């Protein structure tokens, strides 16, 4: 039998590992049969077959060696002398019932026997094999291995990754930055804005001459580098965004005053205050109480329960943010799935889809909505007029599609008992929480009217409302108020947003987005749909390009960088007088929100829900689990939104 030895420097590691037998079996009926087959093969080492089988069966009686995750590690000290501990590895393709602790059949069996004098070495080997088999990727490779040699290689061979493999992502980013910069140095000087009145009036013609084209190439390369960096090194996103800002400052592309101005402080303050406020409302139990109360009234049909939870995902994400929405509804779904012993995966997918669609319902549903509102000077009422009806229709369609796509899982006649959901909330705090929540929502809804009435600047009430509510909460929470600020606000994300906004605004500052807007119009002119749509043709084509680009890109990259980069383009198109161009704000919002359903990494809600799912079940959500249904939902909802928005183009400013 072939075996490969591996070296060891650590005292914890056993002496070199040698597999004595590797077997690949299609079917086997019981552990005893496995032991008999292995004992027969180990006879060459002086093992007595009956003795070994008896010792292993006794060990099984003292507690199953099926350790979960389709693994069994049968082991025993057997009478007699063995030169060293013996290891056999067996893969059973169809699995064998082992009374494993998780109740699942066993597919990977690592059998170790030793004599009494090898006991220390035997224990080390057991630990080493358990250590290796505990890793998901090792198990996956063992299950997929095409031969016993491959199984052997997986278990014994651990090649160290080379320099280029280790730093592959870094090289990809560096290459991309250099390539984009070189390309930009050729393209931006060639891409000239036409000397028409509107560009001259707005002072954009300067972007055609030095030093702007070189600054444009530089800004684009740095921005794309940051986007790629956040894609590959998400946990370092703040550092990457800060590095980009530093580079732009040091290279004199922008000055400190502009950088601070571009950080969009009102947007940041609004998001920050809402984060803390929503965290407080979550702690008080406001959202859970609302959802549980509704769930307890709808009976015990799985279909109705999913419908209710999806509906609340839409509404809660619209008014309390996507993360809060998914935390509450998927938290309940997990409880439901645990009690009824069904897989929570369909709930995960359906609720995340509903949440992402719902996050475009209002101004406060998603940080991109807040950013668009401040960038475009849009009010809550504007959102209610344009985003809410589209998201309402898309939400209903998402619910119907969810119920159809997951109908197989909802037929299960499992007894559901929503009445057993518990809510531990202090009634006084709860009443106060609901009052604060309603007051904040009412003031945000009416902010534009109040600002007009009070003759104060645009967005003042919008920013002041959550700030005042937060101040009130800190006051009543006293000592806990400090904790709320420290833990309730995702400071990491806030910093990232600030730096990101400044980076994106720099694209506008240097004229990149003006030129891209011009390019977008030239592309839109050539699309056949422009002719079909008649007078609104150019706006309609731009809308389609904007919505589908932001939607598709948001499926693979965080939606905020995409939206932040596209916002200045919409601003430019409005400034140059594209008819009804304000409708593009909604295409951007909807693309950014709905596109989050495309992949697992499409939005914060996806990541939060997947994290909760993995923590609760120990299982991994596969890309294939997601993409099939995610693509259908994304395509259908974006198509509906496109049609609804195109039909309304003549009504837009």
């Amino acid at each position, binding site marked *: 039998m072939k075996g490969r030895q591996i070296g060891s420097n650590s005292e914890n590691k056993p002496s070199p590992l040698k597999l004595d037998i590797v077997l690949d079996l299609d079917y086997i009926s019981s552990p005893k049969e496995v032991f008999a087959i292995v004992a027969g093969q180990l006879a060459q080492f002086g093992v007595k077959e009956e003795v070994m089988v008896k010792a292993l069966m006794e060990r099984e009686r003292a*507690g199953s060696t099926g350790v979960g995750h389709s*693994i069994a590690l049968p082991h025993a000290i057997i009478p007699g002398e063995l030169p060293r501990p013996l290891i056999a590895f067996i893969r059973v393709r169809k699995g064998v019932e082992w009374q494993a602790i998780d109740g699942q059949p066993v597919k990977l069996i690592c059998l170790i026997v030793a004599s009494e004098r090898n006991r220390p070495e035997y224990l080390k080997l057991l630990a080493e094999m*358990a250590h290796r088999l505990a890793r998901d990727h090792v198990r996956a490779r063992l299950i997929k291995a095409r031969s016993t040699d491959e199984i052997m290689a997986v278990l014994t061979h651990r090649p160290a990754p080379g320099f280029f493999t280790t730093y592959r992502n870094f090289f990809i980013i560096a290459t991309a930055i250099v390539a984009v910069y070189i390309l930009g140095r050729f393209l931006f000087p060639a891409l000239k804005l036409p000397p028409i009145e509107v560009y001259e009036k707005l002072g954009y013609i300067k972007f055609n001459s030095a030093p702007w084209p070189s600054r444009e190439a530089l800004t684009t390369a740095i921005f794309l580098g940051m986007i790629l960096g956040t894609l590959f090194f998400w946990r370092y996103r703040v550092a990457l965004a800060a590095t980009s800002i530093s580079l732009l400052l040091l290279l004199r592309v922008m000055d400190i005053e502009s950088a601070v101005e571009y950080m969009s402080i009102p947007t940041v303050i609004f998001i920050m205050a809402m984060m803390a406020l929503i965290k407080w409302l979550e702690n008080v139990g406001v959202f859970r109480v609302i959802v549980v109360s509704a769930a307890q009234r709808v009976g015990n049909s799985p279909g109705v329960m999913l419908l209710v939870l999806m509906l609340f995902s839409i509404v809660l994400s619209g008014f309390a943010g996507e993360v809060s929405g998914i935390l509450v509804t998927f938290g309940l779904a997990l409880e439901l799935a645990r009690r009824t012993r069904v897989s929570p995966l369909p709930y995960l997918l359906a609720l995340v889809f509903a949440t992402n669609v719902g996050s475009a319902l209002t101004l406060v549903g998603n940080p991109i909505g807040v950013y668009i509102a401040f960038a475009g000077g849009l009010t809550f009422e504007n959102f209610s007029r344009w985003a809410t009806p589209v998201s309402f229709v898309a939400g209903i369609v998402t619910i119907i599609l969810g119920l159809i796509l997951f109908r197989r899982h909802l037929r299960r006649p499992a007894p559901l008992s929503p009445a057993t959901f518990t809510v531990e909330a202090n009634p006084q705090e709860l009443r106060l929480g609901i009052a604060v929540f309603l007051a904040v929502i009412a003031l945000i809804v009416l902010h534009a009217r109040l600002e007009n009435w009070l003759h104060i600047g645009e967005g003042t009430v919008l920013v002041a409302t959550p700030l005042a509510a937060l101040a009130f909460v800190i006051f009543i929470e006293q000592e806990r108020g400090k904790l709320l600020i420290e833990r309730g606000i995702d400071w990491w994300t806030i910093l990232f947003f600030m730096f990101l906004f400044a980076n994106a605004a720099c694209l506008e500052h240097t004229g990149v987005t003006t030129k891209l807007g011009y390019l977008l119009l030239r592309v839109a002119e050539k699309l056949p749909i422009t002719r079909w749509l008649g007078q609104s043709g150019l706006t309609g084509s731009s809308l389609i390009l904007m919505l589908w680009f932001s939607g598709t890109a948001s499926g693979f990259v965080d939606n905020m960088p995409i939206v932040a980069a596209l916002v200045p383009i919409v601003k430019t198109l409005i400034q140059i007088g594209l008819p009804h161009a304000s409708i593009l704000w909604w295409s951007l919002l909807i693309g950014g929100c709905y596109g989050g359903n495309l992949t697992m990494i499409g939005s914060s809600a996806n990541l939060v829900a997947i994290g909760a799912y993995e923590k609760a079940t120990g299982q991994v959500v596969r890309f294939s689990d997601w993409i099939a249904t995610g693509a259908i939902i994304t395509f259908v909802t974006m198509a509906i939104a496109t049609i609804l928005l195109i039909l309304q183009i003549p009504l837009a400013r």
Partner: protein
Amino acid sequence: MFERILYIISEKQEEKHTVMEFARRHQSTVLLTAVSPVSPCPPPLQEGETRQAVRQEEHERRCWQDIYRLEDEFKKSGIKSSVVAQLGTIDNIRFLANSTHCDLIILPTSVLAEHDYRLPEELLPNLPCPIFFLPGS
């Protein structure tokens, strides 16, 4: 009463005799596992990712050795025991308890000490069975 006990072993296993006695009295099967300590502070800057991974691997290897050594002791004492094929963090306790269908969790306080005496906020209200915090000797 406690048919299956999930015992999260501590580094020194000072509490093992209490667990053995408890399991013997209740004729329980003990499911052995361990959790990795989570440092409240990030690792020092000069410590690269490779070094951290090596340290983590060494720790896990030590945990598995402790678990199998302990399993051997339980077996010699006539107590039914099994090993759980997963090491995690303290956040995984709920998952482990759910997947192993245990009736009681035994968590030595010294394990908590390694976690800065913090339990995840959502842990206690959502556990499927009682949890028994056992002080060290």
